[in-house]
C-alpha cells in the first residue's frame, strides 16, 4: 500500500507482513529488524512498520500467541495467561530422548542378555553406570538375578516395557545381524 513506485515489483505491505510472520516463526532465536530487512531486501523502516503492524494484529486477535520484542529481536511465543495449560501439556509429552550412551547400553543388554555390568563395560569400553540407572528408571531394563561368579554381579535384561516401546512381540523379533547384513554391508 505504501509502495507505488514500480521499479522492480514492490511488495505490498500485507505480503511483507506475511513473510515477516513466517520468518519470525521459523527462526530459532529472536530475529532482528536488521536481519529481516536484509533477507527481504527492503528498507529497515518499512520492515519495522510491518513488524509493528503484525504485533498489533496479534494483540487484537485475542488468540493464544503473541509477538514480542526480546533480546533486540522479535519472537512469537504463547501468551502468559495460558502458561498453566501449556505447562500441563509439556508434562504429558514422552520422556526425553535416550542419550547415545543409554542407547548403546540398551543395545548391548538387548543382544547379550542376561548380562552383567562388567560384561557391558568390556563390550562398550566405557563405564555404563549412569546409563544403566537411566534405563532402569525408564523401566526399559530389569535386574535378572545374580551371576554365580566372583562378586556375584547383578545381571540385566530387557523388560516388557522395552518390547512395548519398540513394538516387538517378543525378543525373537529383534532384528538379527543377518537381517541387515546386506543392508549394512555396503
Amino acid at each position: 500500500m505504501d509502495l507505488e513506485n514500480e521499479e522492480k515489483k514492490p511488495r505490498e505491505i500485507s505480503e511483507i507482513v506475511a513473510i515477516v510472520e513466517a520468518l519470525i516463526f521459523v527462526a530459532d532465536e529472536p530475529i532482528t529488524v536488521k536481519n529481516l530487512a536484509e533477507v527481504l531486501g527492503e528498507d529497515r523502516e518499512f520492515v519495522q512498520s510491518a513488524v509493528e503492524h503484525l504485533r498489533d494484529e496479534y494483540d487484537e486477535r485475542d488468540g493464544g500467541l503473541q509477538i514480542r520484542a526480546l533480546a533486540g529481536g522479535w519472537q512469537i511465543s504463547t501468551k502468559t495467561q495460558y502458561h498453566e495449560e501449556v505447562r500441563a501439556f509439556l508434562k504429558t509429552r514422552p520422556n526425553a530422548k535416550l542419550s547415545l550412551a543409554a542407547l548403546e547400553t540398551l543395545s548391548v543388554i538387548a543382544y547379550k542378555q542376561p548380562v552383567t555390568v562388567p560384561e557391558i563395560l568390556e563390550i562398550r569400553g566405557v563405564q555404563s553406570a549412569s546409563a544403566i540407572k537411566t534405563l532402569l528408571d525408564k523401566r526399559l531394563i530389569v535386574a535378572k538375578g545374580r551371576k554365580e561368579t566372583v562378586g556375584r554381579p547383578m545381571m540385566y535384561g530387557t523388560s516388557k516395557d522395552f518390547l512395548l516401546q519398540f513394538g516387538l512381540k517378543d525378543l525373537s523379533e529383534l532384528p538379527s545381524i543377518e537381517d541387515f547384513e546386506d543392508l549394512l554391508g555396503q
Partner: protein
Amino acid sequence: MEQQSEQLTFDFYTETPHISAESPDEIKLELGAFAGPLDLLLYLIKQEKANIFDIPIAKITDEYLKYIRLMKSLDISLAGDFIVMSATLIEIKSKMLLPREIFADAAGEIEDPRRELVDRLLEYEKFKAAAQMLYERSTVEQAVFPRGKIESDETNAETNATVFDILTVFQKILARHKEEVQMEIEREEVSLADMLKLMKQRIFTAKELNLLDFFAEIRTRRELVTAFIAILEIVRTESVKLTQDVTFGAITLKKV
C-alpha cells in the same frame, strides 16, 4: 561376435535415463540410472511405442541386450537382476518361435509365453507411478517449514529410537571394540612418569589444558587410566587446579 561402432553421448546426471539411436549403428545414451530391469524394459517398450499386451519380444530383447552390452563395454557395473532378465527375455523369445499349440493347456487354452512378464510390468508400472506421486508430494512438502526451536524442546524431546537404531549402535560398538583391541596390541605402553612429564609440559607452556581434548588424543584404555592417575597426581603435587565452568562443561587444568 560382430563389432559394432557405437557413437555415444553421455549425460550421467539427467533425471531420466535416455537412449536414442539415430541410425542402427549410432546410439545416444543419456544415462541416469534405470531403477531396475523392469524400468529399462518399460522404457524400451515406450520407445518402440509398442503395445504392452503384444510386446514385439524379438525387437525388445535385442534392444535390451544392446543396452546390457553397452554397459558392460563401458565397465559400468550392472546389478545381477539385469542379467537375470536377459535370460528371461531370451527364453520368452525362443518360446515364441515354437508353434503356439505347444503351450496349450488341457483345456486347449493357449498360454502366451509373454503373459507373466506383462503381468509383472503392469504391476511394476503402478508402483513406479506411485513413486512419481511421492516425489511430487515431497517436493511440495519441502516448501513448508515448521516453527523454529523454542526452549521447551530441549528439555523434553521424544524418545524416538527404533529397533534399527539399537542394532546399528550395537554393530558400531562391536566394530569399535575390535579396533580398540587391535590398537592396544600395536601400541607401546606409556608409563605414569612419561604421562606426568607430558602433562606438565603442556600445562606450563599453555597455562592450561583442556582435559577433554587431551583425552581425545589418547588411544587405549590403559593410557586413559594412566592419564587419569597422572591428573590426580599433578593436582596433588603441583600448583594447578581443576576448573569446570558449567555442569557437564569442559574441565580445564589451570596453573594457579
